[in-house]
């Protein structure tokens, strides 16, 4: 991961210069600003298959009510189609479920970028977080050990006995298989409108200054002035989930805050200038992943493009790079056409979905007295 990050930051530094050039030349060439297909990642098939089963298994949550796939649904490019995610029973989410497509090439994770290490940590965070899956991993390990299918799969995958550590390796191995494929942009099959849109993207609209690289994000946090989602504050169950998160992360004055502080939650910059900043999202698979933005405030891509065209929203911390773009209606449509060309196949076949039934009860270990625990 570290090597990858370094390469990307060098690339990012070069973009600023490139944007101007592109705008002047007006020539559309696929592959500018680091854009290009996300490379398939070689995986260990047995480990990935195990991770796939774990991903779809509800026994990985505290009360066995939800699996990873409850919010990360294959048909929706591993999102849930909701403005705000559902969360663990008894809580309600305060952010939009991000796609897991290409998640393995990311530099950081979550809308606020609070984890910047690896998917092993992300997996642990999601399984144990009280408002997400609320699982005591010690209990999870013993649940898994009770399932003969898992016992065999862990062994065959080379992990030996089922353990928490191996779960945190197997799920990321599966996530590595969620790579975008056959997007018109990658396949060189863009419509004329999409091609015009790509020109605007790199030029007049300036999107590429942040939406760079193979995954169309620079993994940095910005404040665009996206309006707050009022439901977070009007629905006590959403607000209380945010409060619990804020208390844990150490956000001052959490009971009086009526806004999502975003990346401030882990940076804690003293002047508060990063309040309301969120990590640039990937633009891949947008056709399947609406509503958009960290709080699901925009239902369509046209709404998103219009929002940028007007120069974003209102916020004292708003990024200075967000300015009115002066795009015509047609230009905005072209941009949407381009964005749609970044969506590829929905990975909903058995290659990426565990289709067999996973038992929701536990087989009895026979001769229990005489076998080792």
């Amino acid at each position, binding site marked *: 991961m570290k090597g990858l990050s370094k390469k990307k930051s060098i690339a990012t530094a070069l973009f600023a210069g490139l944007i101007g050039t592109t705008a002047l030349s007006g020539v559309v060439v696929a592959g500018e600003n680091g854009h290009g297909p996300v490379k398939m990642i070689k995986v260990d098939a047995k480990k990935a298959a195990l991770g796939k089963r774990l991903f779809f298994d509800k026994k990985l949550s*505290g009360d066995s009510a939800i699996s990873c796939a409850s919010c990360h649904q294959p048909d929706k490019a591993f999102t849930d189609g909701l403005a705000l995610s559902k969360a663990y*029973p008894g*809580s309600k989410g305060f952010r939009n479920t991000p796609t897991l497509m290409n998640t393995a090439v990311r530099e950081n994770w979550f809308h606020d970028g609070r984890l910047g290490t690896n998917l092993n940590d992300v997996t642990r965070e999601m399984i144990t977080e009280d408002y997400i899956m609320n699982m*005591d991993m010690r209990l999870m390990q013993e649940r898994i050990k009770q399932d003969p299918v898992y016992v065999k799969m862990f062994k065959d995958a080379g992990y030996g006995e089922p353990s928490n550590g191996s779960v945190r390796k197997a799920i990321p191995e599966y996530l590595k298989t969620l790579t975008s494929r056959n997007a018109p942009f990658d396949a060189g099959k863009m419509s004329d409108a999409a091609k015009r849109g790509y020109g605007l993207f790199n030029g007049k609209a300036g999107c590429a200054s942040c939406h760079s690289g193979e995954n169309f994000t620079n993994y940095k946090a910005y404040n665009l002035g996206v309006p707050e989602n009022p439901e977070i504050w009007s629905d006590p169950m959403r607000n209380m989930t945010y409060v619990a998160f804020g208390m844990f992360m150490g956000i001052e004055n959490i*009971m009086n805050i009526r806004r999502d502080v975003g990346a401030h939650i882990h940076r804690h910059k003293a002047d508060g200038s990063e309040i309301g900043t969120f990590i640039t999202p990937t633009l891949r698979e947008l056709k399947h992943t609406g509503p958009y933005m960290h709080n699901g405030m925009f239902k369509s891509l046209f709404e998103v493009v219009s929002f940028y065209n007007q120069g974003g929203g209102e916020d004292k911390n708003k990024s200075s790079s967000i300015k009115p773009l002066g795009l015509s209606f047609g230009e905005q449509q072209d941009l949407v056409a381009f964005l749609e060309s970044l969506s590829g196949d929905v990975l909903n076949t058995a290659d990426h979905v565990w289709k067999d039934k996973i038992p929701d009860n536990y087989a009895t270990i026979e001769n229990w007295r005489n076998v080792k625990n």
Partner: protein
Amino acid sequence: MKHTKKISALLAGVFIGATAISVAQAEMKVPPLAPLGDPPIPLDNKQSEAKIKLGKMLFWDPRLGGDASTACVTCHEPDQGWGFADAFSRGYPGTVHWRNSQTVINSAYMAKLFWAGSASSLEKQAKSAATGAVAGNGESDVMEARLAFIPEYRKLFKEVFGTEWPLISDAWKAIASFERTLIVKDTPVDKYLAGDKKALTKQQVRGMELFNGKANCIACHNGELASDQKYYNLGVPRPERWEEDGLAQVTFRYEQYAKGVTQEMYRKIKDDPGFYYRSKEKSDMGKFRTAPLRYTKFTAPYMHNGAFWDLKEVVEFYNAGGGQNDFTDGTMAKNKTPLLKPLGLSEKEVGDLVAFLEGFSGEELRVEAPKLPAYAPLPNPATN
């Protein structure tokens, strides 16, 4: 612990060749049964009407649990003796517990809570039960945040504890205060011991004489609680459920993992070693705290694992000199208390003893379930 061991050793000595139990009793200085007084109230959590009212609501409130489905009352049901009428407690959704749910009645008198005494106060017991993965599975931040969104709780917490926003640690205090009101005294046994000789039937009086004499229950079930609050291995048999039910097998292993035993122990252990988890001494394997005998008419099944379904079974178990388990037969240890010997009670005497035990229970304590207040959005932010 040293204290316990010394007494056990002493007891063992006294019993070898003992003929006159009353002499033994006098020598051991075991406190006699006595009428139950008022429960101790900790100085740092005094009772108040408002606190008790709040604690009662919280006791019933499932939002003090992981998925807002499991309240204290879920496993401590008033119509099941303020416990749970199955061998193992219900457990959090997707789990089953692994020990019997104990009655809350008169828990205020206990110095330590849980079967192996792992919690040193009702306040700590409440937190431990609400957060344990096979009990409440709640997390403090989430539970505290939920309380803040219930206007009536904000008002009550402020009134009782003086805080602007409810604190989860105060919730445990309020629950403990409520539990300190769940007292059943003035039972027939209490009245008899206080001088009302008509409070017990003739059969019950015969049972009491056996209790203090031939059956020697008083050796451990003594004082006003009828418990010395010490730990013994009686050889209570291992629950068969662990051999028959995958869900129970999951919890069994989880407990070994969560409580922290050696890898070797984790692999081979097949029964609950009780007090061992606290001391990590092999000599403590299989020991559980002497159960108080009050309110037992309503709290079946009995023992730490719910092995016995009525009091007669319990008495017959003692009459046989206790039983055997992995911690008595040498599989893991040989810790059976030397206090247990076959008692040679006749069928009639067993009946007398059961009748006396029932005299400890008095009237069933029922209370009306509180109405739980709803969530609401927060008021407008404070401005300053």
